[in-house]
């Protein structure tokens, strides 16, 4: 009993030490750490004061070598709706899990009438995004510091986050899943590997298979559940939710030999739309809004040109019923 008493006493002292440590950390080091390890921190601060928050991934911000302007969809939206406070929380590699963390990091008591515009990218349901081995661990680690926990614990989670082993395991999982996933196309069930073999040499078909060859089902449930959680979180805060379904380059699949891919894409789109409409949220379906000229390439997973991004922003601002200049 005496041993337990001594251990308990030491535990109490330890708790006191940790309490003081948390205070010291929050006062002196936490703001500096936020700057250093959480690059989205300043955007989060702006978002806190905004009326509308655009949550986007590469579809918003991507600007590669073929890019004609680095103005993002959200930047165009800010220009078009300059009478409102609009903030963007967008980065390459953002996923529903990142969006959920970002929303939770916002103080629900600051700003009552917020509208969350959430990007719904068809590609977010692809195997390699579900098992993202590159961006997801990095972003998860960056977001450790803005989780709703005490700052010292957040810092500990950042220190002990192990992206390398997670990456390895996810890569392994990806390889396995890639081999085994079967999809039904034209009434026949084939594995993705078989379809890839068939599409060899056809870059349009291959890129489609890499990013969109899935049947919205069990494997995608985790991602759908995350979207559901986001909607629930936003609603529970009394904020408005808008789902922004961004385009796939369907024009790139207009050749007859790719018609089976286009049919497949439209089928999956229908399933997604039905799911979100049943969630009682506003869905802005821009999935077929753009034409070939608005994409940076012919592939179905191509990113958007500046004009394409401007069109999307225009569509958004119109739908949000704000006067457009």
């Amino acid at each position, binding site marked *: 009993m005496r*041993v*337990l008493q*001594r251990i308990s006493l030491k535990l109490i002292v330890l708790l006191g*030490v940790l309490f003081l440590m948390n205070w010291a950390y929050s006062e002196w080091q936490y703001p500096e750490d936020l700057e250093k390890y959480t690059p989205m921190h300043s955007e989060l601060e702006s978002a806190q004061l905004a009326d509308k928050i655009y949550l986007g991934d590469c579809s918003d911000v991507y600007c590669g070598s073929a890019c004609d302007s680095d103005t993002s969809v959200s930047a165009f939206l800010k220009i078009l709706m300059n009478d409102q406070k609009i903030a963007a929380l967008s980065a390459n590699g953002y996923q529903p899990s990142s969006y959920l963390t970002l929303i939770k990091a916002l103080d629900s008591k600051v700003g009552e009438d917020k509208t969350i515009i959430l990007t719904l990218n068809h590609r977010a349901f692809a195997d390699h995004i579900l098992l993202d081995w590159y961006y997801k661990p990095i972003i998860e680690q960056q977001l450790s510091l803005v989780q709703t926990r005490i700052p010292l614990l957040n810092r500990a989670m950042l*220190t*002990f986050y192990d992206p390398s082993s997670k990456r390895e395991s996810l890569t392994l999982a990806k390889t396995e899943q890639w081999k085994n996933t079967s999809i039904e196309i034209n009434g026949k069930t084939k594995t993705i590997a078989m379809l890839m073999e068939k599409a060899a040499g056809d870059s349009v078909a291959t890129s489609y298979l890499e990013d969109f060859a899935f049947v919205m089902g069990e494997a995608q449930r985790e991602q759908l559940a995350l979207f559901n959680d986001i909607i629930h979180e936003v609603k529970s805060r009394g904020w408005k939710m808008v789902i922004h379904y961004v385009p796939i380059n369907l024009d790139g699949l207009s050749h007859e030999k790719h018609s089976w891919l286009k049919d497949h894409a439209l089928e999956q789109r229908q399933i997604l739309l039905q799911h979100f409409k049943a969630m009682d949220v506003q869905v802005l379906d821009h999935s077929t809004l753009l034409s070939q000229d608005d994409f940076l390439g012919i592939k179905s997973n191509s990113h958007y040109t500046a004009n394409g991004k401007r069109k999307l922003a225009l569509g958004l601002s119109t739908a949000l019923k704000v006067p457009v200049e």
Partner: protein
Amino acid sequence: MNPAGPYFIGFLLAVVLAYYLVPNRFRNHVISMASVGLLAWIDLWFAGAFLVVTLMNFSAAIWIDSKHQLKQRHQALLLSLLGNIALLVAIKHSNIFHRIGDLFSNWLGSPNPIPALNWILPLGFSYYMFQALGYQFEVYRKSHPAEKSLINFIAFLGFFPKIFAGPLERSTGFLPALKTPRVLEYDNFSHGFRLILWGVFKFIVISNWIGSIIETSYIPDSETSGLYMMLSMVLYTLQVYTEFSGYTDIALGSGRLFGFQLTQNFRQPFLAKSLSDFWRRWHISLSTWVMDYIYTPLSLWISLRISPRKWGIMASIFISFLLLGIWHGSSWNFVIFGMIQGSILAIEIISLRSRKKHLSNPLGRIAGHISTMAIFVVSAQFFKTNNYHETLNWFRKALDFSNSNSSLTFEYNQWPTYHLIAILIFFVFDQFVVRNNIEKWLDKRNAVLRWLFYSLLIYAIIAGTESSVQPLIYQGF
């Protein structure tokens, strides 16, 4: 799973709680279940491999013990050793045969008929395998009878705090400890947590600081100056030390929580006067294992069967350290590492008399320290690179002073002064003040100073590192 990470520490605390909640006679059951459970949690294959080795050695030792004639015992031991070595080679060195096949197929211009197996090495495989081999020897030598309780044997071989990278425990010490009743003692908790805290600090903080400094030097084609690469070479050795000794402290501290004193693996290795002295201070549990179970029988055999001359001892030491090198993995890098160690140790044996004279004066001692460190620092580079071509290229680049990058202006590298000073302070504190005995050092301090020290360590662990936890280097062996 990282032994310095929150998952392991959380698991450890849960098991310690369960351990003291059950009566004494069930405590080894808790250890056994936790050990197999941890392996299964990480990977079912790891638990499966462990159970195969355990069952094989458990029954083999009973079989050896049942033989009463020396010749029969000898044959049983030989069979058991062959079985273990075959399993070790099959799992750890499986690709040796593929590489040999590669050599021949290149020569003959035909495809390699031996497939690459690429098996994932089960966690702690070589560590528990070596413990099992040592156990067979001890049963054969009648140091103790074969263990009859499978639970005790699993606890001995797989005690989870030491499963990642040792220390290698002897059956002569650990099996009797498992049979001794253990009670909840405050000192065990206090010393155990101190060791764990110090170990995590070395592993997470110091090792990461060093890692962040040397990282760029080891990127192929990086524009790093020769002098910076030399510094990185020294720091890499220190990184291996902080990581491995940090892990060992965590293992030792965890052992103390269960009431066990595990084997010390380090004793101020950077103060060694010679390479033989160094191996008495570095990875002690492995080097003494090699000396007891490879070097001693081998040198006896050579002196009895071949020649009692000095060269027999030299050959034995060379072979022993060559095997120690190969124990790390089936790569030429480790073969070269073992050969360097073996050759120099063999030279040290024949030059013992003349060296004794030199080591008696201060200058000679300093020369001894420096040359020992230089040998180890250079040979440790073979652990860092993937193959010996890479190692040689690395040395070539580091020594290429005609390269403009090797100027003293360090324009390509910002010297991380604060971290270097902190690492230097740590090194002096660890080697000259703490002397690999943090418990003793803390025992002499008063409570206020102790708690200030703990607070500093905890804060540094949580908020003092720039990058996340790296995997333990020695875990891969």
